């Protein structure tokens, strides 16, 4: 029983970063109706920029800011080059363009820091908190906290501000939004930048809690983000959070009970089964 609870704890804390990635993906998908394959690589670009900066100074807040700025910069570049020109065109073109930029961003990053693995200043020096037989790493708690804070902030913006109304209008029906006087292009760009900022923060938290950076961060965060978005029912923000946490739990438990190589298998199997069964809520038109 102890293992079960410990695994659940581990699953939830891992799931927090997946949830954040899922939220970033869903925001972009909600506004643009396109999956952005460069989302992970943009995060990696931000994280690599922060790693490069960490050689000269160790201030965590400053490194976080650099990671966020780098990811937003890369994100806006991707939006302008791959998504803005294809707003009315076929979805495949935008996705393949974002894949091409994925390759480009990854090569930028590996040129900046060619080695296979880099150390990164730790998010928290002390050991894990333990209460009773269970222990939770403080870094994971910080990520969970960040996830909750992002959701509350996101919820507040979407529901209580004028900008939130415009975002939801664009998500609901871009043509009607345009006719209501909303500059759909500008709203999409700003949402894209916000999603990239969330991604940059997530990237920073992940590399700081693992205390290392690898070139695999790009592909890893794209896959986990898309999985979280899909598990939660494409296009729904609370769904993405639930999907991310569920993914964390699935991985933690299947790794413990079935062995490490089944970790990803079970996650993909569940997504495939969910898609095949095609429940009603799976294809939610609404984004919340």
């Amino acid at each position, binding site marked *: 029983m102890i293992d079960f609870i410990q695994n659940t704890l581990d699953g939830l804390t891992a799931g927090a970063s997946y949830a954040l990635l899922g939220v970033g993906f869903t925001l972009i998908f909600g506004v643009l109706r396109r999956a952005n394959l460069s989302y992970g690589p943009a995060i990696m670009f931000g994280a690599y920029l922060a790693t490069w900066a960490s050689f000269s100074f160790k201030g965590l807040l400053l490194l976080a800011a650099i990671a966020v700025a780098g990811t937003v910069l890369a994100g806006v570049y991707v939006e302008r080059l791959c998504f803005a020109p294809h707003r009315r065109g076929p979805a495949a073109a935008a996705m393949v363009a974002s894949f091409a930029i994925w390759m480009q961003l990854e090569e930028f990053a590996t040129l900046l820091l060619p080695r296979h693995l880099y150390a990164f200043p730790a998010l928290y020096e002390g050991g894990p908190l333990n209460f009773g037989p269970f222990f939770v790493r403080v870094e994971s708690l910080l990520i969970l906290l960040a996830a909750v804070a992002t959701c509350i902030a996101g919820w507040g913006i979407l529901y209580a501000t004028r900008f939130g109304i*415009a975002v*939801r*209008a664009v998500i609901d029906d871009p043509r*009607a*939004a345009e*006719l*209501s006087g909303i*500059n759909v*292009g500008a709203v999409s760009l700003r949402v894209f930048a916000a999603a990239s900022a969330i991604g940059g923060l997530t990237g920073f938290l992940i590399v700081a809690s693992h205390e290392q950076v690898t070139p695999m961060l790009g592909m890893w965060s794209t896959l986990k983000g898309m999985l979280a978005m899909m598990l939660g029912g494409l296009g729904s923000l609370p769904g993405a959070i639930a999907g991310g946490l569920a993914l964390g739990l699935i991985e933690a438990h299947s790794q413990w009970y079935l062995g490490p190589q089944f970790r990803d298998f079970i996650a993909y199997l569940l997504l495939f089964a969910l898609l095949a069964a095609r429940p009603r809520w799976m294809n939610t038109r609404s*984004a919340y």
Partner: protein
Amino acid sequence: MLRVHDLVTAYGKIEALKGVSLEVAQGSITCLLGPNGAGKTTLMMTIAGVLKPKSGSIRFSESEISALPAHAIVSRGIALVPENRLVFPTMTVLENLHAGAYQRRNGFAEDIERLFVRFPRLKERSEQLAGTLSGGEQQMLAVARALMSRPKLLLMDEPSLGLAPLIVEEIFAIIAELHRDGTTIFLVEQNAHMALKVAHRFYLMEQGRVTFSGDPGSLAEDEVIRRAYLGSSKN
């Protein structure tokens, strides 16, 4: 107020508008009639800035607007109530209205109050999701949302489409009321009979061209209806 001159809009190679010229006088109700596929909706979309014309000009109170994007045209004072009344289904009625007034910083409260007086049904449903409203109610919401941007010229694309006769009466009553308040209205309408009752001037369109223009008295009503639905026999 609105002068369209030799407007050409094409979808790829197919020209939907083949040089359309028409005028909407200040404070008038001008109506556009024509068979399906005559290019009526294309014209509305081009004026509203959703579609980019290939050539020709659209002058709105002395400034050229054919190159402006849709949101800029709304800020100039033109609002379109689109065909099949696009509303934001997952947002409440009130939020739909706020979306309509996105361009303005203030003065929402009185506008909403005034609209609720004019559209009492919307007041009852103000917290309801727009997607759950009936066709007629959605049409009223679409009109109300367009009015939230305080337009000088209101474009309406077949507002009576798919609505029960009783509601169509209500829609045309509202149109007359808006006219009395000084809003200029450019109306695309299938229901020629109702349209001719309120219109000061009307145009007939076929295959992307204006084929007749005049005021309601100038052409016998049945002739207008025949040409509006069956197209003129000459060409």
